């Protein structure tokens, strides 16, 4: 028996009531300080002048921070860029991992090699990939433009060219991320019951029909999750443009998060930066809620 100096009633109270909250406490403290309070505090800061010089006496200024945002052309520019980023990212990179996963899953030769080979970029740190691709994209002299020149075309000037800058970043992101997502889909494919394929084959379904009516419906829940995750992830993009283009050329790759960063750490205007963060917050939470409602409806109908 354990010996305790505490009176029995306190001990009983501890075992019955107190031990649960005690186990919960570390997480609750972390969440309170670094998640719940910052969210609530955001709203307060966004209505105050809160800059580096006068941290102590933030003054209430009503909607002023939002007015500053709405009169800032780069606010609109960065949202436009990010939406373009999301759309291009979905067009180029959304279906690719699904196709890769289905194809790799069928392979009877070198399957392990193919899986690992396609997964390779996902093993590299993003910063490493970004710097390396910045060199590959070097205008005229870089690897890619050299090949373009060898083929007899004008150099594209990738990241320096306003027309191709975002596209170049999306190509790099797809190269980096497709392998990771492919592994998730591959795991999902292992859960497809073989009897379904067996039945489809007996019914005379050809390859495309089997993919269309067996594989895709089975992967659909996963595909829906990856869809919203890719959108949310792309809305917050920062590291790639920050390292590779610094938002250029002519702010063509400036993202929402980069603009927030500029407001906070270049102009030290935390009020406007927080207000802009809240616009991101509202957009992302609304997207999640819309997605949940759609997912529920789709889940009910299938």
């Amino acid at each position, binding site marked *: *028996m354990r010996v305790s100096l505490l009176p029995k009633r306190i001990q009983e109270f501890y075992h019955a009531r107190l031990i649960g909250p005690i*186990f*919960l406490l570390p*997480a*609750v*403290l*972390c*969440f309170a*300080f*670094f*998640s*719940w*309070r*910052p969210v609530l*505090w955001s709203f307060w800061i966004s209505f105050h002048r*809160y800059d580096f010089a006068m941290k102590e006496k933030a003054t209430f200024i009503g909607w002023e921070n939002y007015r500053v945002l709405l009169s800032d052309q780069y606010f609109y520019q960065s949202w436009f860029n990010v939406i373009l980023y999301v759309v291009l990212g979905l067009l180029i990179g959304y279906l690719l991992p699904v196709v*890769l996963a289905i*194809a790799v899953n*069928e*392979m009877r030769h*070198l399957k392990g*090699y*193919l899986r*690992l*080979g*396609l997964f*390779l970029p996902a093993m*590299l*740190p*993003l910063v*490493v990939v970004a*710097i*390396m691709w910045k*060199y*590959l994209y*070097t205008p005229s002299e870089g690897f890619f433009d*050299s090949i373009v020149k*060898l083929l007899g075309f004008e150099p594209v000037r990738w990241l320096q060219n306003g027309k191709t800058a975002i596209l170049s970043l999306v190509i790099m992101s797809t*190269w980096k991320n497709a*392998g*990771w*997502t492919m592994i*998730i889909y591959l*795991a*999902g*494919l*292992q859960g497809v019951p*073989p009897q379904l*394929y*067996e039945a489809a084959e007996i019914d005379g379904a050809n*390859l495309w029909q089997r993919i269309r009516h*067996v594989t895709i419906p089975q992967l659909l829940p996963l595909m829906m999750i990856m869809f919203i995750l890719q959108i949310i992830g792309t809305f917050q993009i920062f*590291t790639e443009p*920050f390292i590779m283009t610094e938002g250029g050329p002519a702010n063509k790759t400036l993202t929402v998060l980069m603009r927030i*960063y500029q407001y906070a750490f270049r102009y030290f205007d935390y009020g406007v930066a927080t207000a802009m*963060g*809240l616009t*991101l*917050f509202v957009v*992302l939470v609304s997207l999640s809620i819309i997605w949940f409602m759609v997912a529920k409806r789709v889940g009910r109908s299938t």
Partner: protein
Amino acid sequence: MPKRLRQQASVAQGRTLISRTDLAKPLVKVFYWGVFAILFFGTITTFLPLLWGFMGALKTPREIFAFPPTLFPQPALNPFKWQWANYIEAVKLINYGKYFFNTLVLAIGVWFFQLVPSAMAGYAISKLRIPFMRVITVLFFASLMVPFQAILIPLYLTVIDLPIFHINLLTPGLGGGFLAIMLPAGVNAFNIFVFRTFFDQIPTDLIEAARIDGASEWRIFLFIVVPLSQSIIAVLTIFSFVATWNDFMWPYIVLGEDFQTIMVRLYHFQNLAEVSRNIVLASLMVSAIPPMLVFLIFQRRIMQGIALSGLKF
């Protein structure tokens, strides 16, 4: 069982889109090898940029921009053949040892804060009695909808002036920003969720029996629950280490000069005008080695883990 028989049995069990009889048809065969060729070409495109970087580090700065581009260092352009010394130079110039150590210390701290509070909370939700259970769990999981980037600024203002304590976590005396990364790592609803789901599978009878034997909740947690959860802890540990190693934005914002991680250091290093590109490429390669080693060593675990928790990324 002979190998061929075993193979046949496993194919019959785990059949996929194309069956064995399909594959005997010539048209399907052509299609199959066509897809194989495309996938094989895909692995070349994933490999080529990496090879270009690795080889670029072995060239003279002049050759990186030679036209037509070369993949392997050409003897004509490299008076001293392959410049292996570039790698040594890079390790020295970037001060690899120091930043490796920084990153390692940070990774251990982040690991602690990512796992311990989450595991305890997961245990409390799964097996203990807590008041306002519903409200608290909803509040935990609501945070999954709030990406940390959207509250970047209030979070920054929190760590430079921690409420109640009124201390600045970024001052060198307090770890130069290490704590500003470790403490918020405790906000991890995903890990709480994973742990709770895992603990739900541990039979309550087992825990009841230990309680009757007089074990305290702490003993039960440490000596029964944690050892049973080794597999999940291993996966979360690997991911935690790799994520800390690769993380950029938040460390870049909060870490003081002497406390930078390898990735933050790399960013500053490649911005220096006096460092030539072959040295930068070499430093990129050596910085990518540790996470790649982790991936290669724990390949199987990680593939399982992505299936379980890949959604986090």
